[in-house]
């Protein structure tokens, strides 16, 4: 005999509860009130007459009440009757069986030969085909049977009439990222066929799996069964990441509090289904699209890393690049030795703007198919509309016919405009910016709608045009960029007063422009700043080392949030960056001009100039293009889309990799719409479509959960921990052919006595009720006093 709640504290509480009636009795006796009384003769007679009988009754009642409480304490202590022969309940009691079937991504691995894989094989569907795939179509006996197929085959053994009693029940839970219940109610033996069919029709798993979570769910399900014995079978590949060994909190939540030396009410057995050992496996990962800003018909590179994660060399195979589901490039991958990796690079130009799904896939017949592809998305930018207000363009009218004639009309700002119109790395490619030029005194300037432009460049103007003075702050706050380039035409009032008055930037200005006798090298203070990070990452394009300056505006920013990524070696800022508002708007100030001819610096002549101008422009337009970055998400990482408030979106529909759809409603915050979708545990391509047709679909690529690639299986140490006497989370491991050991009569080593005790408690309660009634009846007597006993009523 043992107790599931056998702690000392419990018995102390129990003893206190049992002594309660005695205490109440004693306390009750203490309080009396005096009553002057005349009819003492009757009182004395009644006391003498009933004293003896009452004494016996009261003692009996007190004993009964004590017994009821003691029994209750005993029952709540959950006594467990142990031992075989002496335990009449342990013989062949029916069982409620909870079956946890591992349906994580790792169960797509090929099963070991003879791992119970007598069911249909298959599971060869790739990530993108998950919806149409599934293992249902595979022929029995297929050598490519997966671990999941083997697991289903092991569960199918339960249908054997010799194994289950008629009153046994089965509940099935799939261990996925969050447990999925296949059978909300316990299924009797005779109806098990339908459940097995449902199991076989499941498409292969794609997410990570949590065995403790699934066991907890299974425990809830078997709790609904009527049988006294409860058993949970966990059919899994024993992947360590899924089992979470040494995580006592997860396992305690799964199986309940366990007490050392006490038989648990629900016993958990591990039924391992081994994956094939020694099979080669290729994993594609680290899919990336470069450059960070991809334009239409501009060269882009898609890179991916192929790693041999298997124990054997992988022969040469083909790798394919799929854009929007269509194969656009293919290259061969040479044979990869164990643990070797290779980076694949596909050069590709996107012919249209907006979002594109990108996928790199290797055609390998390896142990695990799900990691043979990696998905991401690329956002192809349309040209950025840029308004350049140029102080060197004074007198020239805004030329409506375009840039060409404007370029003819002046010389100095050619460098800036040229840099904006063409990335120097590929001069013949279409420009990423669509530039509109205007002079300070241009009569059409007031009519321009600033919101039509992603950013405004104010280049070397003497003073801010009056029409812009009050507009620029709101413009920046709504997520746009303003770029001030100070030069020789710039007046001190602009730097010191107008920028501060417009609340864009507060600068302390030295009396005179700083000038060096010899060119001063530029100091990159923040290599990770978005405008400079590309140069640090790509040494081939890193021309920053050659930048020098001779003359500049010597200013000190006073705003706490202003950053100085670039400065002179003497410490004066050359580039100041300050965010404005919460929508990604910002202001950038260059303190030295870009006209080349003024002799202030050598910037327009160095190779890095055009990229620097472009990246600065993209940086300033980041608010305008926020949420359109290239997207490669990790499993479980939420996908977030942001867009302008107009047009308003009522709902967005997310199509998951398995073809299922879900809808999400956008939130509006700071005049931008935000769609957030968190259920991204399936790897592959997610497509976001909107109810507004003018918004193009947006793609996201979600990678597989890398933990599922971990080949590590439960070690002996892990299994010893799971089965340790201290908690006994798992009884032991069973072969799929040995399920009878868990379900048969011999398995019941301890039976809870609560049904018997509950019956006893009920009997005691009935006896107590009867005794109470008996005593009360005698105590209270006739309701109306003596008048009711047939004697002359008092008048």
């Amino acid at each position, binding site marked *: 005999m043992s107790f599931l709640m056998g702690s000392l504290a419990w018995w102390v509480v129990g003893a206190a509860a049992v002594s309660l009636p005695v205490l109440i009795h004693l306390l*009750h*006796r203490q*309080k*009396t*009130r*005096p*009553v*002057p*009384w*005349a*009819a*003492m*003769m*009757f*009182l*004395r*007679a*009644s*006391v003498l*007459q*009933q004293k003896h009988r*009452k004494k016996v009754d*009261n003692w009996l009642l007190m004993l009964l009440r004590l017994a009821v409480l003691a029994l209750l304490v005993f029952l709540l202590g959950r006594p467990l009757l142990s031992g075989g022969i002496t335990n009449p309940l342990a013989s062949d009691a029916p069982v409620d069986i909870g079956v946890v079937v591992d349906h994580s991504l790792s169960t797509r691995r090929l099963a070991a030969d003879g791992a119970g894989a007598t069911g249909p094989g298959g599971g060869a569907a790739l990530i993108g085909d998950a919806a149409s795939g599934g293992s249902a179509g595979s022929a029995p006996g297929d050598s490519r049977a997966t671990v999941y197929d083997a697991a289903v085959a092991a569960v199918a053994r339960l249908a054997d009439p010799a194994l289950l009693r008629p009153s046994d029940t089965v509940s099935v839970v799939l261990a996925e990222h969050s447990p999925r219940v296949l059978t909300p109610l316990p299924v009797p033996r005779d109806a098990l066929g339908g459940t097995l069919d449902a199991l076989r029709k499941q498409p292969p798993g794609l997410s990570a799996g949590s065995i403790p979570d699934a066991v907890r769910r299974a425990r809830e399900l078997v709790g609904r069964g009527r049988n006294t014995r409860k058993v949970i079978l966990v059919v899994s590949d024993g992947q360590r990441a899924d089992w979470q060994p040494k995580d006592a909190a997860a396992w305690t939540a799964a199986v309940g509090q366990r007490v050392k030396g006490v038989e648990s009410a629900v016993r958990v057995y591990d039924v391992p289904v081994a994956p094939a050992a020694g099979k080669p496996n290729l994993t594609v990962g680290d899919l990336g699209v470069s450059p960070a800003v991809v334009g239409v018909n501009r060269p882009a590179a898609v890179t991916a890393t192929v790693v041999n994660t298997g124990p054997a060399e992988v022969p040469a195979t083909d790798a394919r690049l799929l854009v929007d589901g269509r194969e656009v490039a293919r290259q061969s991958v040479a044979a990869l030795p164990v643990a070797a990796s290779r980076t694949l690079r596909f050069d590709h130009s996107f012919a249209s703007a907006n979002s594109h799904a990108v996928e790199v896939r290797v055609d390998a017949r390896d142990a695990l198919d799900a990691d043979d592809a990696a998905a991401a998305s690329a956002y192809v930018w349309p040209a950025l509309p840029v308004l350049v207000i140029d102080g060197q363009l004074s007198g020239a009218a805004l030329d409506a016919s375009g840039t060409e004639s404007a370029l003819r009309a002046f010389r100095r700002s050619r460098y800036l405009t040229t840099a904006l119109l063409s990335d120097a790395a590929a001069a013949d490619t279409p420009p990423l910016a669509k530039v509109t030029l205007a002079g300070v005194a241009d009569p059409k300037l007031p009519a321009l709608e600033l919101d039509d432009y992603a950013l405004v460049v104010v280049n070397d103007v003497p003073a801010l045009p009056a029409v812009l003075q009050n507009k620029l702050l709101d413009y920046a706050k709504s997520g746009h960029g303003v770029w001030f380039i100070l030069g020789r035409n710039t007046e001190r009032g602009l730097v010191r007063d107008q920028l501060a008055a417009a609340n864009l930037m507060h600068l302390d200005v030295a009396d005179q422009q700083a000038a060096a006798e010899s060119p001063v090298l530029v100091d990159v203070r923040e290599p990770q700043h978005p405008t400079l990070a590309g140069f640090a990452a790509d040494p081939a394009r890193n021309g920053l080392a050659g930048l020098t300056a001779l003359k500049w505006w010597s200013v000190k920013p006073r705003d706490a949030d202003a950053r100085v990524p670039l400065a002179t070696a003497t410490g004066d800022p050359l580039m100041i960056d300050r965010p404005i508002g919460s929508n990604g708007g910002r202001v950038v100030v260059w303190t030295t001009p870009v006209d080349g001819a003024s002799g202030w610096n050598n910037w327009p002549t160095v190779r890095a100039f055009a990229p620097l101008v472009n990246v600065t422009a993209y940086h300033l337009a980041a608010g305008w293009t926020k949420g359109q970055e290239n997207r490669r998400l990790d499993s479980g990482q939420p996908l977030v889309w942001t867009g302008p408030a107009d047009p308003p979106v009522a709902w967005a529909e997310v199509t998951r990799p398995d073809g299922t759809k879900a809808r999400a409603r956008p939130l509006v915050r700071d005049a931008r719409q935000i769609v957030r979708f968190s259920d991204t545990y399936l790897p592959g391509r997610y497509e976001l479509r909107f109810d507004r047709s003018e918004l193009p679909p947006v793609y996201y690529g979600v990678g597989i959960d890398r933990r599922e690639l971990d080949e590590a299986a439960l070690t002996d140490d892990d299994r010893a921990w799971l089965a340790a006497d201290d908690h006994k989370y798992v009884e032991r491991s069973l072969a799929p052919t040995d399920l009878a050991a868990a379900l048969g009569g011999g398995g019941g080593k301890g039976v809870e006595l609560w049904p018997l005790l509950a019956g006893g408690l009920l009997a005691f309660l009935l006896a107590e009720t009867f005794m109470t009634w008996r005593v009360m*009846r*005698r*105590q*209270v*007597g*006739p309701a*109306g*006093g*003596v*008048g009711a*006993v047939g*004697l*002359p*009523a*008092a*008048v």
Partner: protein
Amino acid sequence: MALATQPSPAADRTAADHAPGATSLLEPAALQRISRMELMASQVMDGYVQGLHRSPHVGFALDFAQHRPYVAGDDVRRIDWRVFAKADRYYIKQYEVSTNLRCQIVLDASASMAYRGPNDPLSKFRFAQFVAAALAYVVLHQQDAAGLVTFDSRVRAFVPARSTPSQLMRLLRTIDETPAERESGIGPILHEVAERIDRRGMVVVISDLFEDAGKLTEAVHHLRHKRHEVILLQVMSDDELTFPFRTWSEFENLEQAGDKMKLDPAQVRAGYLDAVAKHQKALTDGMAKLNVSHLLLNTSKPFDAALATYLARRAGRK
């Protein structure tokens, strides 16, 4: 009728219970209800009886005393036709010796009578005082003789029965001045009363009758043996009849200081009620055999209504 105010019985606990004087015992409303009745003696009285009280000595020469109006039930032979001829109203002639009913009221003034329950308007003793006063008034009002005995364990006052006009005041004063105290011993008292009343008549005992039923019956038997008509008016509080107590209490004997019982009322209630019922049954049975009226009066109900009901019942039985 200005009578001196007397201190109330020691055990009477509230001011409402304290009579300001003897006249307070005769509330007009109560008297009006009771005085409509004639106290009917169901037995043939000894001596010369006229009017209401039938006498075997019909036609005996008597001294005229007064006329009184005819009421239903009077013998028509006693109507004074001369007066009728003059006044066109019926009058009965009354004579000196027509006051032959001798009613002795025996009032228990022991300490047990001082009990007053929380919901009772009066203590048992005050209640009994009112009943005694009312009876005395009615008896004297119909020209009969009334006397009074108050007692505890011994006779405290003995007023012989008379029908004089001053008798009512004397009785009322005695009733009002008597406190409820000391132990009771009703059995021996009734024996003593039986011995001390020389002429047979009516004996009205007003008491809670907390006495062994056998002894009480024996004492009443003695009175009956002396050919008295006996009426037992048993006064009990509603608490004594229903025992409504619930919480642990210490019951202190009103008659014996220091006699206390600490007990759970719920435990003894049934036994108590059983004992009361047995006592009452023994009393009722005993009194029925002796042809004695036994009336239980509950102090929680108006005493005049109870008395009026009883008198009406007696009138109907005649």
